[in-house]
């Protein structure tokens, strides 16, 4: 991108920020009202076209927009409190939805008037998402859905769900999928908490029993659900791994705190070197996110998003575990005990070292296991050949499953 274009974009973004701040002072406007106005000024997803929450500029300006809002006393917490919508759903709807979908869903999503959830994984379809078995059968203009989904973050709060179903079991598995937006308040939708190793139920299981979905809530073609789902997942992996937060924040902050509390004075040199190894890797990863953001020129993330997701997951696990070790005997405790609660937002941002340690175990599983991430990087970035596939060219019905 040449310098002139960059300058023009900066001016455009600055002008909108100033206009937004003038009409809706961030510190003094109710959150939802502010986010609505932010959308209207094209500052929700700057890379979206005008009228769809964006300005049609490079996505790298978004970080600056959000920073300015925060500095002015406004909130950007909608981004993680409605992360399945704002972080993943929006990109999917822009890429695959009709203009009606875009007009109907994006603004209430961004303003947190409607919460979104994602209905992909099933007990028998984890890494192998395309093996999913939840069916949708067409009856006139309506689809009737039956099946079970798992790992549904925010399922109990959501108004809308991003749903992938099997509409044709007689073709190879990737070809028989169709993607819908489902109304979570529709009949036959049963959301149950799924308790996890922290004692919390951050996720849900969702059961569908003869749940109807109008055909106009379909994203993409019938049988074209796989590529729509891929768009969502690529956005998810970027959302999980790729944030360029300030130096020293995140898991490493917990480790540094534990170090200073337990070992500040006479810290063992071996532990210090381990701490620094983690610090170094966290900082190198952070710099990579900064670099990726600078290099980003288009809106749809590619397989590179898997790099950050993979590295972040393994590092977060390692650092939170090391932090428990730093705590020594206190590492054997679980302060407050296991309470079987259902938190109201996705990641509890100040969970303390013990809960963070347990929660991190899922990092290398959720949003694509580290094993799957490595396959993607190996095949789609490095160009290595895939494995011999026994499930690709036969009808889904005939593929072995567990």
């Amino acid at each position: 991108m040449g310098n002139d274009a960059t300058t023009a974009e900066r001016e455009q973004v600055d002008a909108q920020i100033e206009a937004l701040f003038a009409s809706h002072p961030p510190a003094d406007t109710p959150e939802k009202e502010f986010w609505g106005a932010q959308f209207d000024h094209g500052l929700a997803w700057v890379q979206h076209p005008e009228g769809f929450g964006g300005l049609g500029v490079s996505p790298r300006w978004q970080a600056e927009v959000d920073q300015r809002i925060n500095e002015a006393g406004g909130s950007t917490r909608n981004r993680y409190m409605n992360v399945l919508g704002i972080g993943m759903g929006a990109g999917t709807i822009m890429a695959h939805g009709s203009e009606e979908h875009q007009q109907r869903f994006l603004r209430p999503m961004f303003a947190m008037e409607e919460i979104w959830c994602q209905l992909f994984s099933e007990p028998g379809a984890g890494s192998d998402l395309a093996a999913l078995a939840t069916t949708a059968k067409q009856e006139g203009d309506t689809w009737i859905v039956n099946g079970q989904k798992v790992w549904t973050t925010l399922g109990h709060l959501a108004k809308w769900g991003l749903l992938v179903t099997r509409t044709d079991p007689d073709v190879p598995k990737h070809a028989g999928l169709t993607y819908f937006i489902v109304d979570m308040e529709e009949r036959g939708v049963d959301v149950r908490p799924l308790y996890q190793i922290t004692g919390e139920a951050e996720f849900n299981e969702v059961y569908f029993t003869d749940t109807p979905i109008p055909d106009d809530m379909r994203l993409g073609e019938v049988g074209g659900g796989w590529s729509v789902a891929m768009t969502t997942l690529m956005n998810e992996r970027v959302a999980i791994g790729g944030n360029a937060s300030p130096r020293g924040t995140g898991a490493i902050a917990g480790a540094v705190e534990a170090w200073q509390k337990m070992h500040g004075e006479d810290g063992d040199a071996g532990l210090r070197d381990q701490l620094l190894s983690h610090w170094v890797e966290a900082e190198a990863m952070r710099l990579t996110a900064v670099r990726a953001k600078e290099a980003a020129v288009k809106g749809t993330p590619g397989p590179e998003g898997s790099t950050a997701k993979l590295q972040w997951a393994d590092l977060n696990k390692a650092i939170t575990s090391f932090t428990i070790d730093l705590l020594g005997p206190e590492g054997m405790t679980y302060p407050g005990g296991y309470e079987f609660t259902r938190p109201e937002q996705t990641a509890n941002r100040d969970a303390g070292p013990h809960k963070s340690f347990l929660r991190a175990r899922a990092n290398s599983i959720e949003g694509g296991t580290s094993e799957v991430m490595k396959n993607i990087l190996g095949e789609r970035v490095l160009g290595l050949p895939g494995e011999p596939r026994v499930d690709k060219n036969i009808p889904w019905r005939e593929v072995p499953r567990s």
Partner: protein
Amino acid sequence: MSALTAPAPIQPFVLTDEQKALTEMVRDLLGDAASSERVREVMLEHGGFDQALYDQLVQYGLAGLTISEEHGGAGASFTELSIVFEELGRRLAPVPMLSTSVLGTTAIQVGATSEQQAAWLPGVADGSSRFALAHLDPAGRLDADPGVRAMASGDGFTLDGTAGYVIDGASATHLLVAATTDDGLAIFHLDAEAAGIERRAIDVLDLTRPMATVTFSGVEVAADAKLGGNASAALHAALTAGVVMLACEQVGGIQEVLSRTTAYARERVQFGRAIGSFQAVKHKLAETLVASESARSAAYHAARMLAAHEIEELRIAAPLAKSYCSDVYEKASADAIQLHGGIAFTWEHDAHLFFKRAKASKLLFGSPKHHRALLADVLEL
């Protein structure tokens, strides 16, 4: 030391037929009595103490396995007890064997007079006494003085202070309290319900191994509650035995997570294939297999040295076993979660119970790094 079971000759690694029978017996017993459902019920509703299971272990003579026959025990060695601990570790059985049959029993065998042993040990064998060893300060620091101080008072002593991280502290019938006196370290044998004792359960990571903070406020004890022998030696022997039996317990846990994960990898199908056919899964399990064999060797070796009273070799064998088995268990149980995928992140699946046991037992009695430092000193490195 009279009541310590006589040193066994150094045993080979290969189990005798009797030892194999013991393995089978304990495995059968726990198979029914320490099911996942039962363990979960005990950890959530009974403070992590399974009275019914423990009664069975007592009946089979396992609680007093290393207690001499004259005191009602089985007169067996730590080699046999190591077999029991491996099986306990496989089932995460929530019973006070580590606190009572290892820490408490050994402390008394090494540090108490003959009369005291005769008075206190039969209760272990018959199940009426369950010990907890209170020897750490409230922060659990290994290198600090105990958190309890004992002042001479009339014919006896008055105990004040707080002990932290007392294993099975809340459910024990008796406490063995390490305290600082004007004459140095001493260990006292107390009724856990004595006046002035407050026991508060700690919120623990691993609910299958409960711990308590125990506070002593002007607790009066008679003179003969003080163990008559060398308190430091008793404490050291108890903790050495604890470290070694813990390593054997870890070996059981390692074996169990390896077996369960291998079985899952054979059955779970993704992409039309059992996931165990993928190298990413297969190689991780192969690495765990290799490490598990070495962990077993290290733990067995230490248990046999313990049984044979090879004190010098134990200075190497015990920290070797504890550091190595802890690291292997942590990794194996973490891998087990990863290889099971999402299902292992749920509360209902057992993977987290092993993972938490692995992490907590890694930090119990000192971290692997701590034990490697002990080893470095012995090896003069």
